[in-house]
């Protein structure tokens, strides 16, 4: 029998260290919902989502109660909408977002991702219509998340799309100005987007996926932080081992929940995403883990190395614990969603340039960052281009979720509430990148050999 210490270990992790399963995300293919009549297509989309996900939330809650482990979010991801809506004869894809939103509300999930377009090499007519519909769609719906993939290691970076996304983000902020530019928190610009990511706002159900699938995202920054407190001052070999062991346990729990959900729903199990996803709650922060390794404040010199170790050890520990690993897998560093990051940004130690360096070694990118409301579209595009370049060259996923908060200046804070937290407005370089972004075209795909 499991001994009492192990049992109380688990209970303390849940009670005091915020251990949870961050999300059960059901991926649903909508490829069979395409219709030349947009109304018919929207009806098919609503019907398919509500049919497939009817029992998702209830099943998640039952598992929560029986295993005594919190499952924070139940979510949906669908086929990139540009691929579905492309067949319909219409110029605006806003009704498709509304259909997604209505379906998500009907089944009781808290987000639905997949209002997406993949334009890394070029955009189809449908992709262009979808991107043009993003600002209004995100302003008019509550639960819909959008993403656009503008680059990849194989295709290079589509700089025309990068230019468009800078303007789209500005427009999103304007249309949701009364909520601090909240629309931008539901929009991610990717390089090397993955098809099985269970986390929002960037989740979508790739075309290589089956009809319906269950993906699970685990979390546990608090548990890792707590474990590291016991090895204060010891060499990094010990730190890495400790993180690996902790990640193993956390992931085993995620795997169990994923298999159970898959069995009860009669839907195949896809992947477990091995992630350290922070929340704004005290004791659930990735930044505080880095500080526990010996940094006075997250963002100072040494932060990138600390994050590299953390990210790698989480994967190594998690891989053995799960039969299939995928998604983004690694440590997330969203500024507004991490109590330690918020404090570091507020104190001025953590700035955009350091965050950019950190994204070279973490699982995603510049995430939930508020910048002054008067930041130009070209500057945002240039930030996206920098981030996409990091992803493209390093064969990893990178993303930008940035909020040019209307009317706000450096030093202000944007409050989003809930898991999205509050974002201190961070300074940007005032020098223009207008002419750089205006060039358009494509940045060619990089060499994959002679790597130095």
């Amino acid at each position, binding site marked *: *029998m*499991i*001994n*009492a210490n*192990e*049992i*109380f*270990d*688990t*209970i303390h992790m849940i009670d005091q260290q915020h251990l949870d399963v961050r999300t059960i995300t059901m991926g649903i293919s909508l490829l069979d919902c395409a219709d030349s009549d947009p109304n018919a297509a929207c009806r098919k989309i609503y019907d398919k989502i509500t049919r497939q996900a009817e029992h998702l939330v209830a099943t998640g809650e*039952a598992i929560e*109660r*029986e*295993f*005594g*482990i919190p499952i924070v979010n139940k979510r949906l991801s669908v086929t990139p909408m540009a691929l579905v809506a492309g067949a319909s004869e219409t110029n605006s894809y806003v009704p498709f977002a509304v259909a997604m939103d209505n379906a998500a509300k009907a089944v009781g999930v808290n987000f639905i991702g997949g209002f997406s377009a993949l334009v890394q090499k070029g955009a189809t007519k449908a992709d262009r219509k979808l991107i043009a519909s993003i600002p209004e769609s995100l302003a008019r719906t509550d639960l819909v998340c959008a993403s656009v993939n503008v680059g990849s290691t194989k295709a290079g970076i589509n700089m025309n799309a990068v230019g468009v996304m800078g303007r789209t983000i500005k427009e999103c902020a304007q249309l949701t100005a009364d909520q601090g530019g909240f629309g931008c928190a539901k929009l991610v610009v990717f390089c090397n987007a993955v098809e099985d990511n269970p986390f929002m706002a960037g989740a979508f159900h790739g075309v290589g996926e089956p009809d319906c699938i269950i993906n699970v995202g685990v979390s546990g920054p608090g548990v890792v932080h707590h474990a590291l407190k016991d090895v204060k001052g010891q060499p990094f070999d010990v730190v890495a081992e400790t993180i690996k062991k902790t990640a193993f*346990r956390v992931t*085993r*729990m995620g*795997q*169990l929940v994923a298999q159970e959900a898959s069995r009860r729903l009669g839907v195949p199990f896809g992947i477990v995403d091995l992630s350290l996803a922070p929340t704004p709650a005290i004791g659930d922060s990735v930044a505080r883990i880095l500080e526990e390794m010996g940094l006075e404040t997250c963002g100072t010199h040494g932060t990138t190395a600390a994050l590299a170790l953390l990210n790698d050890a989480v994967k190594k520990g998690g891989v053995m614990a799960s039969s299939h690993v995928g998604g983004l897998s690694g440590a997330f560093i969203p500024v507004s969603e991490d109590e330690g990051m918020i404090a570091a940004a507020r104190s001025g130690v953590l700035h955009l340039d350091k965050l950019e360096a950190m994204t070279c070694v973490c699982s995603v990118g510049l995430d939930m960052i508020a910048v002054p409301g008067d930041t130009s579209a070209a500057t945002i595009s240039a930030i996206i281009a920098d981030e996409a370049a990091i992803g493209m060259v390093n064969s990893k996923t990178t993303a930008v979720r940035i909020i040019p908060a209307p009317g706000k200046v450096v030093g202000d804070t944007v409050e989003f509430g809930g898991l999205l937290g509050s974002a201190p407005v961070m300074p940007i370089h005032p020098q223009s990148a207008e002419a750089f972004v205006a060039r358009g075209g494509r940045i060619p795909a990089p060499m994959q050999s002679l790597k130095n």
Partner: protein
Amino acid sequence: MKAIVTVLGKDRVGIMSLVCGLLAQHNVNVLDISQTILQDYFTMVMLVDVSNCDLPFADLAALMEQEGKDRDLSIRAQREDIFNAMHRI
């Protein structure tokens, strides 16, 4: 199916009787018990068999939690699998 019941709270008369009473009432068999007092705190772990329980397991867990809450105790019933997954390869 086996489950783990854990009880934590300030020690006093009747905790054991309360928990065992509740379990017996719903036809849950106790297989193993480990119990100590840590600095006045009552700490107990029970392995139980819920195969013949007259309630769905989630309802039993909710009931135990509520009965505990009413008496300032933390009582949890969780499926054994979660502990096996986390602590055994």
